[in-house]
């Protein structure tokens, strides 16, 4: 059941449905630039046709009228350098504004995770509900997608939202959109990724918020689902043997880590965000915390992307224990004077 397309032929639309504010912005930009294109192309075409007819050769030995390069030439040349340049830079500025906005998800965007692999899309909702090749989203809510690939470079493209982002192995890329029209829209993989690239397609289904709540409530149990499994992984993969909150731990404390500034060996700092945690799991020696040895083994190849995501979410949920509260499953942390103030 596809969204009825806009266009003069129902089965042969001219442009895709516009399902977000940004789609409208991009269309406006495009049609303006299209207008500029049509203007200049027509100008050239009309001039060429006119000159061709008006100055048609009338005798075999006729030559053209020589126009000596002089002051007038410089004015003309400068004009048609500067005017297109100004127009082009104006177009650049407008396009850059949209692009920057597309790169900055609003703070209230809901975080979805996407893992691309040959040849399917694995999508996870904030609550843990999983989908394959389909993305149900509520209308009117900004949706942020944090994406990575398990194998080759893919690209997540929703024409109705007019945005796409490559999905790269070994790192996270982000895109966001805010759908404001209910309906079903195409999802395409648009970076060639192998044999079944054309079939790595799916649907983005925008629902009324109430319908979305009903849909999402029907499956996994609340917010507990994925975080519990993150905790399970933390234990089953032996993370807790080093990452403990007591004084003999050989690894940095993770409680209260998210968002903090981390001091590294060599004097640099890093911010403990999702990318940092992911890197620490798969490439631990890339950034060594100051004062620690590079002894953490890499979990590359031992955790699937979804498991890494679960772990990141678990670590994000770890609040720093206060002096009176116990961190789960370990001895009470050694209190230090600076401890309280830092919270």
């Amino acid at each position, binding site marked *: 059941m*596809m969204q009825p397309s806009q266009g003069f032929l129902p*089965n*042969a*639309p001219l*442009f*895709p449905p516009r399902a977000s504010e940004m789609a409208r912005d*991009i269309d406006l*930009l*495009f049609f303006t*630039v299209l207008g500029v*294109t049509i203007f*200049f*192309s027509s100008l*050239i*075409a009309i001039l*060429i046709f006119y*000159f*061709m007819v008006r*100055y048609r*050769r009338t*005798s075999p*030995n*006729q030559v*053209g*009228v020589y*126009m000596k390069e002089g002051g007038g030439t410089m004015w003309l*040349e400068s004009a048609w350098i500067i005017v*297109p*340049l100004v127009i*082009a830079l104006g*177009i*650049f500025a*407008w*396009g850059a504004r949209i*692009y920057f906005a*597309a790169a900055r998800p609003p703070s209230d965007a809901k975080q979805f995770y996407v893992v691309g692999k040959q040849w399917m899309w694995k999508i996870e909702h904030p609550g843990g509900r999983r989908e394959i090749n389909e993305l149900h989203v509520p209308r009117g809510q900004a949706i942020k997608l944090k994406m990575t690939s398990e194998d*080759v*470079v893919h*690209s997540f*493209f929703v*024409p109705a939202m007019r*945005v*796409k982002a*490559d999905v*790269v*192995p*070994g*790192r996270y890329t982000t895109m966001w959109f805010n759908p404001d029209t209910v309906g079903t829209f195409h999802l*395409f*993989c*648009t*970076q*060639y990724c*192998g*044999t*079944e*690239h*054309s079939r790595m*397609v799916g649907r983005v289904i925008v629902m009324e918020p109430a319908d979305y709540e009903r849909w999402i409530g029907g499956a996994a149990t609340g917010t507990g689902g994925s975080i519990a499994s993150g905790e399970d992984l933390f234990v089953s993969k032996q993370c807790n043997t080093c990452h403990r909150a007591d004084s003999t731990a050989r690894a940095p404390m993770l409680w209260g880590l998210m968002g903090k500034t981390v001091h590294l060996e060599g004097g640099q700092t890093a911010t403990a965000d999702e990318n940092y945690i992911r890197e620490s799991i798969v*490439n631990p020696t890339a950034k060594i915390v100051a004062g620690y040895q590079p002894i953490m083994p890499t979990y590359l190849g031992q955790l699937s992307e979804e498991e890494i995501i679960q772990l990141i979410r678990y670590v994000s949920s770890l609040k720093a224990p206060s002096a009176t509260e116990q961190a789960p499953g370990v001895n009470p942390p050694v209190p230090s004077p600076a401890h309280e103030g830092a919270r």
Partner: protein
Amino acid sequence: MSALTDFVEPVEEAPEPYEHYLNHKYGLASWLLTKDHKRIAILYLISVSLFFVLGGVMAVIIRLELTTPEGDLVQADIYNRLFTMHGILMIFFFLIPAIPGVLGNFLIPLMIGAKDLAFPKINLLSWYIYVVGGLFTFYALLAGGVDTGWTFYAPLSTSYTNTPVITVALGIFITGFSSILTGLNFVVTIHRMRAPGLTWFRLPLFVWAHYATSLIQILGTPVIAITILLLAAERIAHVGIFDPKLGGDPVLFQHFFWFYSHPAVYIMILPAMGVVSELVAAFARKPVFGYHFVAFSSIAIAVLGFLVWAHHMFVAGISVYAAAVFSILSMLVAIPSAVKVFNWTTTLYKGSISWETPMLYALGFIGLFTIGGLTGVMLATLGIDLHVHDTYFIIAHFHYIMVGGAIMGYMGGLHYWWPKITGKLYPRFWSKVGALTIFIGFNVTFFPQFILGYLGMPRRYHAYPNEFQVLNVMSSAGATVLGLGYLIPAIYFIWSMRYGKDASANPWGAIGLEWETNSPPPVENFDEIPTVTWGAYEYHESKVTPSLPPPRPKGEVVRV
């Protein structure tokens, strides 16, 4: 005066046989061991035409498949190999070598009043290297072909595909040296072999364009060479340079690849622009307006072309600030092209315009290149590229430039200089039919693809949603017409070599040192190197009908 009886004077009586580069020696060895730039140009003509046909056949199958939404003509695997090999053959084995190898080789020594290029043996070596590279790629084609797309992105090409990537990569690596050596030859020739008095600003704009092209070939091609070596090392030994599992970066491959492949597109278009400058001057019988601006714009395109590569990577995960920089630079690189288009158009004002076939191709170039170039400005616009990147919009954009631009320029040049190269005239009526068929077929093929791209149809898709079918069918119908359109010149060009009327030294009444030799030219081009005291297109200073000394009778060989 009707278009069909425009000013062209075929020689009515059979001329006295005289010695020229075609009949000076016969036999396969005299061709395969030649050092004559004119013969080498013919060798290139034959080989690039063969690759063009091969790439074209693949395009036909692709367009046939795309008439239906399901992947029902060929399997996905085969389709992927088809579009990959189509891209590789067309780009590396046709578009890059064609105009420099055929027209550049033939004409540059003639245009500058030299007897040959600076390094004739290296010129022949260039052709052989090109053939060897082509054979490697052809062998890979027979072994099933590669299915990574001509862009070979890692890690798909390094770790995930089972096709003969290394063979094809090797073929491209080898052919790259052909491109480098041709560029080297042209640069040295243009610097050192100009006739006395032929200053830089008296050079035909064709020469300027090839000089700029050669700069790109020299500086850019080695980078794709090393990229291919790294790709091969990664594929063979899995050293990790592009593999994230080993600490490598897949996006690094994209940077390396596009650092060459973007300037490469200027290698493909600049020579065609040079041709168009010559055609506009000759068929309007006046100097190109703004000669200095057109000359410098070629250099500007070459320089700026090296600074914009990451506009192919706006959605690949580069930083937004880097993207903004590359977007601005991409806007800048459009300006010199615009300068050329405006200058060519202004040249027509108060010209003496002939509607001969070469001019039709030149004017077709200007129109279609303008459209293709302006859609390039759209792509440089970050907000628009977000939507249309990796869709059919891109495909339409570069086909407008490469087919509507470069190939039309090549055809125009072939039609203009054919009498000089072969000494024969082709039938004018059919040449105009051919030009019109190509123009119409081209637009019907590729214009719908702009719409398809904006609709969201991704590139390299074997099967697609039903609502895209109408536009795809239109495009495929146009492709049929376009294919037939290319057949027409193929037929009459071959026909003309046996049955065409003999051409005089200057059938178009044009100005240029190449028109001061007979058609075809003698082996040594010039008996005595001329001293040049005139500008490139001084139609206003002279009568147009040339008078040449009578051609030397055959058998009297003079060594200069």
